[in-house]
C-alpha cells in the first residue's frame, strides 16, 4: 500500500483518432480512501472542467499538443502533456501536506529544498500569508510559524525598533530590536507598508544561527526573507484579478475608562475652592485654564450669578469627551484593494506583471492611496547565461485625518468633559486664556485666540507623498554543470515629501501669530513678526541604497557525497538625505511665502518673555557603508549525514578607529542526521525522524552608535555662530553586539504523514551588549552614565510545531496546525545603580529594564497592605503596615518581584475545515505566563493632566469601603508619594494571560464546470479578525494587551479572487 494518497487517473482513451481531429478525453479520478473531492481538470488551450460525482470526467480536445493540469484542494497538482499515444493510464499524486519536501526556502543568498536545510527556517507560503488580511505583510506572518511574536504595548527608544516583532525573543538590551528584513535577496530599508502583501509569494523566517549567520552583523534579531511572486518557464499566460474590502469598526472609545464628567467638574470645583488654582490665576493672567475653572473664576469675579454658573457647569457635567471624539472625528475605517496580475513564460523567458491599487480611509477620516507596479523577468540569454530582473514601484500619498483620541488639550489638560458642539449644533469655541486679559492686549486687535476643536482640523493639512523604486538584476553564468557565477545588483530609492500646513485659521497659527504680535501703543499699529498667512512645515527626505554582489554557487555530487556551497563578496551603501523647512505667511495660490526673522528676539505679548520664531528647518545626510565576505558550505553523505558551516566577515564605516576593528567575523556550524534512513531504524509508525543541531554567532548593529569622538554641528540662532556639541564621549572600544545561539531540532512524521512536526530547543546568548555603566560625571557633565559593551543576556526556549490532517468519509477534510512556544530570558550582566535596580523594573513592564537575574521585560511592585480605615493605601515598612509613603517608596525591601512582563508561553492553533467548495478556518492564539499593571488612579495627575487613571468611581469614600475597594480615598493637598505608591503597588497587578480568537475565515471556491467559461476559478473570502478575547486570567476583564481600554477594533474582510 502506498504511503501517499494516490489519484488514479484512468484514461480510457477512445481512440477515434485522426490527425488533429478532435477527440474526447475521458477519465476518472479515484481517491484511495474513497472520498470524493472535486478535482479541477484544466488545459491551456482546450478549456477546463471538473470531475463528476464519481470522479469521472471527460473533455473534448481540439488542439494539441497541450498540457493537462489536474488539481484538487489539498493535493499537489499534476501536469501531463496531452498526447494520445503516450498518455499514462495511472498518475500518482502527492498530497499537499507532503509538499514540504518540495518546498524551497530562501535564505536570501540561496534557495534550498526545505529538507536539505540544517538551520531553522520557518516557511510561510502564499496560502498562509492570506489567512490574515491587511496592508502590512508583517502582520500576516504572525501565528504561521513558531518563534515569531508581536510585542504589544512595549516602548523602545532605539530608532531601529519599529516593527515590534521579535524572533525567538530578545537578543539585545539597548540595541536595535527589529529583525532584518530581506526583500528578494537584499536588505530592505524602505517602508514595509510599500510592499503589497499579495505580491508576495512566501516569507521565510530565519531563526537560528545556522540560518541567519549568513547575514552576519545584522542578523542577531533573526531575519525575515520576503520573496515576491515570479513567473515560470513554459507556462501559458495567466491572468488573475483580486478585489478586497476591509472594514474596521470605529474604536470603542466608550470602553476607555475615565473619570466621569460630573465627577471631574465637582473635582475642579473643589480644587478651585481650595485655592489650588489661585497661584496661577493671580500671578499669571495668561495661564491656560480649563473651561470649568474659567466659569468659576467668572463667578468669583461677579460676572456670573450662581444660577448662571450652575447652568453653564451643567453643560460640562453632561458632556463626554469620548463621545465628542466619536461623533466628530471617528468613522469606520475602510480599505479597498484591487489587483491585476499576469504571468507566463516560454522556454527562454518568463515574466510576471502586476498592478495594485489600494485606497484607505482611516478611522479618523485620514485618506491614503497607493499604487504598485510589479514587473519581473527572467531571460535565458544563452544556455549558460541567464538574466533575472525585478522592478517594484510604489507611489503612495496620504492625508492626515481628524484629531485622534486625547490629542486635544484645553487649558493644557486632557479633560473628560469636553463637548465639541453647542446645543444648537455650532462648534464650541474655547477661550483658553482669560478674556479680560486678552482684551487689553494690543488694543484688543489680536486675532481670535479661541480654540475650536470641532473645526480646527479643517485648517490643517498633512500631506505625504512617497515614491519608491526597488530594482534588482542578477546575471547568472553557468561555468560548469556544478559551478555557476552570479553578478547581482540591487538599487532602491525612496522619497518622502511631506507638507504639514497649518492654515491661518488653525489654532496653531493664530496662537503663534498672536504671541509674536508687536503693538505700538502710541500709534496703535500692530506688526507681525510671524506674518499673517499659513505656516507650512515641509520635509523632504530621500533614502538610497545599493548592493553589488558577486557569488559563486557550487553544487556537486560525487559518489555518495553531495556538496553545495556559496562563496561571495558584497558591498552595500545606504544613504539618507533630509531637508526640512518652515515657510511662514504661506499661501498655495498664488504661491507665496514671507521671510521671517529667526534670529531676533520678540517679546511674547502674553508673558512678556522674549522668544524667537520657531524654526523647524534642517539638513541631514548619512551615508553608511558595508562590505562583506561570506561563504556557506553544505556537505551530505548518503543522504543521511550532513554538515554545514558558514562564515561571514562584515566591515562598516560605523565602528572603531582602525580598519581591523571594523571587521568582525561571524560564523555558524550545523549538522543533521536522518535516522530513519539508517538500516537499524525500524519504527514503522514513525517513518520520518531527523535530528539537527546548530551553533553560531551573528551580530547586531546599531547605526546610531559611533565610536568617533564626534561633534555635531549647528548654528546658534541668537549669535549666528556655528556651534559644535559633543553628543557622546569618545569610545574607541565600542564593538558590535554579538548574539550566539545553540539549537537542537527533531523533525518527525508519523505514518501517512497525518501528523508531522518538529521540536526545537534553543539557547541564545547576547554578549558584548551595549549597556550603560555609571561614571563620574565630573569628567564630562553631559551624562551620568556611559555606553559600553558591558552587558550580557540569555534567552532560551522550546518550540513545537505540529501539522495534522485528516479526512472523513463524507469528504469533510480537516487540517490543523499547532505552534507552541516557551521562551524566557534574563539579564546576566548589567550595571545596577546604587543597588536600586529593583526600582527600575517598577515601570510597568512596558520597556526593557535590565536587572541581573530578571527577565528583560520584568515587573515588580510595592507590597500591598490594603486600605486602612481612612482609605489610605498601606504598604510595608520594616515588616509593619505603614503609610509613610516617602520611606516605603525609597526602600527596596518593600518591593516584590512579580514576574515577566512579556509572554513566556505563547502559540496558536489553526483549524481548517474543508467541505466541498467551502473552507472554514480559524486561529486561536494564547499568551500566558506574564503580568501587567492596570492603569491606576493618581489624584495629582487627575488634577494636573486631566485624564489620570481609572477607578475614581470606585474610590474609598466612607469607612467600611476598604472592604470592597483598593482605590484610595481622595486627599487634598495631593500627595504624590501616596499616588505613586498606589499606582505601582500589588493592588494593580494583573495576570496578563489570555486566549484570543485571532481570525475566522470562510472561503468559497467556485470552479465553473463549463469549460467554455472564461473564468478558470473564483474564490470568495470572508473574514473577521483582531484579537477577540476569549479568556483572560485576570478577573477584572481587562484586556491585558490594551489595559487602557483602547484596542484595535474588529476588522471585517471581504475578497474575491479570479483566475482566468
Amino acid at each position, binding site marked *: 500500500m502506498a504511503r501517499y494518497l494516490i489519484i488514479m487517473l484512468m484514461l480510457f482513451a477512445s481512440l477515434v483518432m485522426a490527425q488533429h481531429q478532435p477527440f474526447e478525453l475521458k477519465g476518472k479520478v479515484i481517491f484511495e480512501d474513497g472520498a470524493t473531492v472535486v478535482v479541477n481538470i484544466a488545459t491551456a488551450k482546450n478549456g477546463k472542467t471538473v470531475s463528476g460525482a464519481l470522479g469521472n470526467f471527460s473533455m473534448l480536445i481540439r488542439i494539441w499538443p497541450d498540457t493537462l493540469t489536474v488539481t484538487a484542494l489539498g493535493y499537489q497538482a499534476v501536469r501531463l502533456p496531452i498526447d494520445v499515444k503516450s498518455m499514462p493510464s495511472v498518475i500518482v499524486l502527492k498530497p499537499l501536506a507532503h509538499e514540504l519536501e518540495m518546498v524551497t526556502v530562501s535564505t536570501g543568498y540561496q534557495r534550498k529544498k526545505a529538507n536539505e536545510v540544517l538551520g531553522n527556517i520557518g516557511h510561510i507560503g502564499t496560502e498562509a500569508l492570506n489567512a490574515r488580511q491587511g496592508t502590512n505583510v508583517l502582520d500576516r506572518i504572525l501565528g504561521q510559524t513558531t518563534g515569531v511574536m508581536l510585542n504589544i504595548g512595549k516602548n523602545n527608544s532605539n530608532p531601529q525598533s519599529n516593527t515590534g516583532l521579535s524572533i525567538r525573543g530578545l537578543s539585545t538590551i539597548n540595541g536595535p530590536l527589529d529583525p532584518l528584513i530581506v526583500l528578494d535577496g537584499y536588505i530592505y530599508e524602505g517602508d514595509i507598508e510599500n510592499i503589497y502583501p499579495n505580491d508576495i509569494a512566501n516569507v521565510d523566517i530565519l531563526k537560528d544561527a545556522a540560518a541567519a549567520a549568513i547575514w552576519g552583523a545584522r542578523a542577531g534579531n533573526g531575519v525575515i526573507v520576503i520573496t515576491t511572486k515570479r513567473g515560470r518557464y513554459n507556462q501559458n499566460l495567466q491572468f488573475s484579478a483580486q478585489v478586497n474590502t476591509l472594514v474596521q469598526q470605529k474604536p470603542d472609545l466608550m470602553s476607555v475608562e475615565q473619570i466621569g464628567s460630573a465627577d471631574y467638574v465637582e473635582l475642579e470645583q473643589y480644587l478651585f475652592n481650595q485655592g489650588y488654582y489661585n497661584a496661577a490665576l493671580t*500671578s499669571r493672567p495668561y495661564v491656560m485654564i480649563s473651561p470649568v475653572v474659567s466659569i468659576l473664576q467668572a463667578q468669583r469675579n461677579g460676572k456670573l450669578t450662581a444660577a448662571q454658573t450652575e447652568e453653564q457647569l451643567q453643560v460640562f457635567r453632561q458632556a463626554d469627551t469620548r463621545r465628542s471624539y466619536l461623533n466628530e472625528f471617528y468613522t469606520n475605517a475602510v480599505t479597498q484593494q484591487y489587483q491585476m496580475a499576469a504571468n507566463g513564460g516560454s522556454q527562454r523567458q518568463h515574466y510576471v506583471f502586476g498592478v495594485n491599487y489600494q485606497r484607505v480611509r482611516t478611522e479618523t477620516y485620514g485618506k491614503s492611496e497607493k499604487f504598485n507596479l510589479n514587473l519581473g523577468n527572467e531571460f535565458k540569454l544563452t544556455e549558460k547565461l541567464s538574466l533575472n530582473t525585478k522592478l517594484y514601484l510604489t507611489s503612495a500619498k496620504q492625508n492626515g485625518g481628524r484629531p485622534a483620541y486625547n490629542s486635544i488639550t484645553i487649558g493644557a489638560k486632557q479633560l473628560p468633559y469636553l463637548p465639541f458642539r453647542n446645543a444648537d449644533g455650532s462648534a464650541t469655541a474655547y477661550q483658553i486664556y482669560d478674556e479680560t486679559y486678552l482684551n487689553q492686549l494690543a488694543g484688543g486687535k489680536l486675532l481670535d485666540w479661541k480654540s475650536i476643536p470641532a473645526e480646527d482640523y479643517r485648517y490643517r493639512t498633512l500631506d505625504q507623498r512617497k515614491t519608491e523604486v526597488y530594482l534588482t538584476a542578477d546575471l547568472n553564468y553557468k561555468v560548469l554543470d556544478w559551478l555557476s557565477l552570479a553578478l547581482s545588483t540591487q538599487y532602491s530609492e525612496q522619497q518622502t515629501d511631506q507638507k504639514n500646513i497649518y492654515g491661518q485659521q488653525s489654532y496653531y497659527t493664530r496662537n503663534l501669530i498672536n504671541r509674536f504680535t508687536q503693538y505700538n501703543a502710541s500709534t496703535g499699529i500692530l506688526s507681525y513678526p510671524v506674518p499673517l498667512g499659513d505656516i507650512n512645515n515641509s520635509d523632504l527626505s530621500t533614502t538610497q541604497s545599493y548592493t553589488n554582489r558577486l557569488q559563486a554557487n557550487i553544487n556537486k555530487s560525487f559518489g555518495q557525497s553531495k556538496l553545495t556551497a556559496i562563496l*561571495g563578496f558584497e558591498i552595500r551603501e545606504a544613504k539618507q538625505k533630509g531637508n526640512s523647512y518652515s515657510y511662514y505667511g504661506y499661501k498655495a495660490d498664488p504661491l507665496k511665502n514671507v521671510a521671517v526673522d529667526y534670529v531676533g*528676539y520678540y517679546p511674547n505679548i502674553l508673558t512678556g518673555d522674549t522668544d524667537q520664531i520657531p524654526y523647524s528647518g534642517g539638513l541631514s545626510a548619512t551615508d553608511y557603508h558595508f562590505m562583506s565576505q561570506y561563504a556557506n558550505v553544505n556537505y551530505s553523505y548518503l543522504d543521511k549525514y550532513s554538515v554545514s558551516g558558514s562564515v561571514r566577515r562584515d*566591515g562598516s564605516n560605523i565602528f572603531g578607529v582602525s580598519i581591523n576593528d571594523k571587521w568582525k567575523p561571524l560564523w555558524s556550524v550545523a549538522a543533521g542526521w536522518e535516522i530513519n534512513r539508517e538500516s537499524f531504524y525500524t519504527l514503522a509508525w514513525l517513518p520520518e525522524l531527523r535530528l539537527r543541531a546548530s551553533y553560531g554567532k551573528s551580530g547586531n548593529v546599531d547605526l546610531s552608535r559611533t565610536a568617533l569622538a564626534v561633534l*555635531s554641528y549647528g548654528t546658534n540662532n541668537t*549669535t549666528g555662530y556655528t556651534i559644535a556639541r559633543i553628543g557622546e564621549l569618545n569610545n574607541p572600544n565600542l564593538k558590535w553586539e554579538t548574539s550566539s545561539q545553540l539549537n537542537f531540532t527533531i523533525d518527525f512524521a508519523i505514518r501517512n504523514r497525518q501528523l508531522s512536526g518538529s521540536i526545537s530547543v534553543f539557547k541564545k546568548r547576547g554578549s558584548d551588549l551595549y549597556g550603560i555603566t555609571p561614571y*563620574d560625571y565630573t569628567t564630562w557633565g553631559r551624562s*551620568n552614565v556611559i555606553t559600553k559593551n558591558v552587558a550580557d543576556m540569555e534567552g532560551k526556549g522550546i518550540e513545537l510545531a505540529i501539522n495534522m490532517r485528516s479526512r472523513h468519509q463524507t469528504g469533510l477534510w480537516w487540517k490543523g496546525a499547532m505552534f507552541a512556544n516557551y521562551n524566557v530570558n534574563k539579564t546576566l550582566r548589567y550595571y545596577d545603580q546604587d543597588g536600586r535596580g529593583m526600582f527600575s523594573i517598577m515601570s510597568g513592564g512596558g520597556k526593557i529594564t535590565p536587572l541581573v537575574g530578571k527577565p528583560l521585560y520584568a515587573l515588580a511592585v510595592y507590597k500591598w497592605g490594603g486600605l486602612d480605615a481612612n482609605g489610605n493605601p498601606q504598604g510595608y515598612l520594616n515588616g509593619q503596615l505603614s503609610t509613610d509613603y516617602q520611606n516605603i517608596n525609597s526602600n527596596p525591601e518593600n518591593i516584590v518581584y512579580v514576574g515577566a512582563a512579556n509572554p513566556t508561553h505563547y502559540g496558536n492553533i489553526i483549524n481548517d475545515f474543508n467541505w466541498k467548495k467551502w473552507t472554514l478556518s480559524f486561529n486561536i492564539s494564547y499568551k500566558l505566563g506574564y503580568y501587567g499593571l492596570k492603569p491606576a488612579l493618581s489624584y495629582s495627575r487627575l488634577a494636573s493632566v486631566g485624564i489620570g487613571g481609572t477607578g475614581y468611581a470606585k474610590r474609598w469614600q466612607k469607612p467600611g469601603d476598604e472592604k470592597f475597594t483598593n482605590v484610595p480615598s481622595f486627599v487634598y493637598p495631593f500627595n504624590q508619594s501616596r499616588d505613586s505608591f498606589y499606582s505601582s503597588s500589588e493592588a494593580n497587578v494583573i495576570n496578563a494571560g489570555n486566549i484570543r480568537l485571532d481570525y475566522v475565515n470562510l472561503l468559497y471556491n467556485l470552479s465553473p464546470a463549463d469549460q467554455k467559461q472564461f473564468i478558470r476559478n473564483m474564490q470568495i473570502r470572508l473574514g473577521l479578525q483582531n484579537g477577540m478575547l476569549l479568556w483572560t486570567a485576570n478577573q477584572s476583564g481587562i484586556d491585558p494587551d490594551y489595559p487602557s481600554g483602547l484596542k484595535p477594533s474588529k476588522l471585517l474582510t471581504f475578497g474575491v479572487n479570479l483566475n482566468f
Partner: protein
Amino acid sequence: MKNRYLKQYKSLFLLFVLFACSCSNYLEVKPDSKLAVPKTIGDLQALLDDAATMNLRVMPSSSEGSSDDYFLRDEDFKSATEDAQSIYLWKAYNLNYINDWSLCYQAIYNTNLVLEVLETIGRTVENAAAWDNVKGSALFFRSFFYAALISQYGAVYDGSTANEKPGVVLRLQSDFNKVSKRSNLQACYDQVLNDAIESVKYLPNLPSHVMRPSKCASHALLARVFLQMGNYPKVIEHATNALTISNYLMNYNGDPHIVNVTAAVPFRRFNQEIIFYAEQNTTKSLMNLMKTRVDTGLYHSYHVDDMRKALFFVASVPYQRFKGNYTANSTWLFGGLATNEVYISRAEAYAMDNQLEKAKDDLNSLLIKRYKTGKYIPVTNLPKEVLLDKIRTERRKELLMRGLRWADVKRYNRDGANIALKRIVNGVTYVLKPNDKYYAFPIPKDVSLITGMGQ
C-alpha cells in the same frame, strides 16, 4: 581536459582575489555629515560658541535657592519638588544628576578639550587672531565655571586656612579615565586666577557677541573672585581695567534697553550693561519666580524714587515678585557679568581699602542712574563703616537674584557680620547659623558615591 579545468579554476581564483580584497577607503567614509572629530580652530571655536553648553541655563542656582532674598509661602513650599524643598531648607544632600555640578563640568570638559587640541595646532601669522580668541576664551570659561563651583561648593576663602579646606575637583584634562579627587581651596582659587589672568593676554577688549569672553569679562571675573578672597587692591585694579573698557550703565529712567516699568519683562535682551552673558540653570526648578516672593524687608528698603522698585518688582498681593532679570525672560535668572556689579564691587573694595572718596563716587555714579531723574541725593562724606554698610545694602539691592548673594553672605560672615538665615515653613522656624558647614554646599551624592570622594 586538464586545460579546461585550468580555465575554470582561473575564474574561481579571480573571485577569491576579489574576496580577499577589502577596499579600505570604502569604509573610511563619514557615516553622518553632521559629525566631525574636533581638529581645526573652527571646530574649537564652535565648541565654545555652543551657548547651550557654555552660557544658557548653566550657572549654579542652588545657592541662590538657599539664599535669603526670597521666601516661599506655605502653599508654594508644599507644591515645590522635594529637591527644591531640600535646597530651601539647607538640606540639599541628595541632589543627583542633572545638577549644578554636572552643568559646570560639562562646560569645563569643553575648555579642557579645546586647550588640548589647540596645542596640536600651531599658532601662525594667518591664524593668530582666531587662535588667540580660542585660547583666551577657553581659559576664561574654565576660570568662570570653576569660580562658580567654588562659590557654591567651596568653603569661604581665608588665606590662612585655604590650604586645608576642601575645594572642588580640579580637572584640567579631558581624559575621563583620570580619577576625580578633591583639590584644596587654595589650589582652586589659584587655578581660577591663573586662567583668568592668562586669558587677558589673548582676548579682545570687547567681544563680537556678549556670549563670547573678552578682556573686559576676564577683568570683571577677576574683580569678583578677588572680592571673595578679600584682596581689595586687586579688586580695584581689575574692576578699573574692566570699566576702562566698558563703563556703560543704563539710565533706568529710559534706556533704549528698557521696555517700560510696567512691562512683565522690563529689560531687553543683551542690554549694554552686560559684559558677559550667562544664565543660571533651571534644572531642579529651584527658583520659580512665579512662586518666590521677595523678602518684604528687602523690598521696602527701596526708596519710592528708586526706579528699581518698579522695574524689579511686580505686586502679587500682599507680596512682591521679582521681574528684573537681565535675561529678558520671566523665569531665567541672569548669571553673567555686568558693569553694575563691577561698579559696586569696586566701591566696596575702595571702602575696604579706605579710599572712601572713590568708594562714594562709584556708589553715586551707579545710583544716580537708578533713581528718578533729579531725585537722587548723592551720598556725601560718611564714616567708613556707614559707607560700607550702605554699599553692601545697595549691592544686595542692585544684584538681586544674580547668584551672588550666597557668596556675599559667606564672606560677610567670615568677616564677622553674623548673618543668620531664617525660614518659616508651616509655622516651624529654620535657621542657618553664620559660618555653618552648609555654606560649602554638599557635593552631589551620586558623584561622591562613585568617586568615593566623600563630603
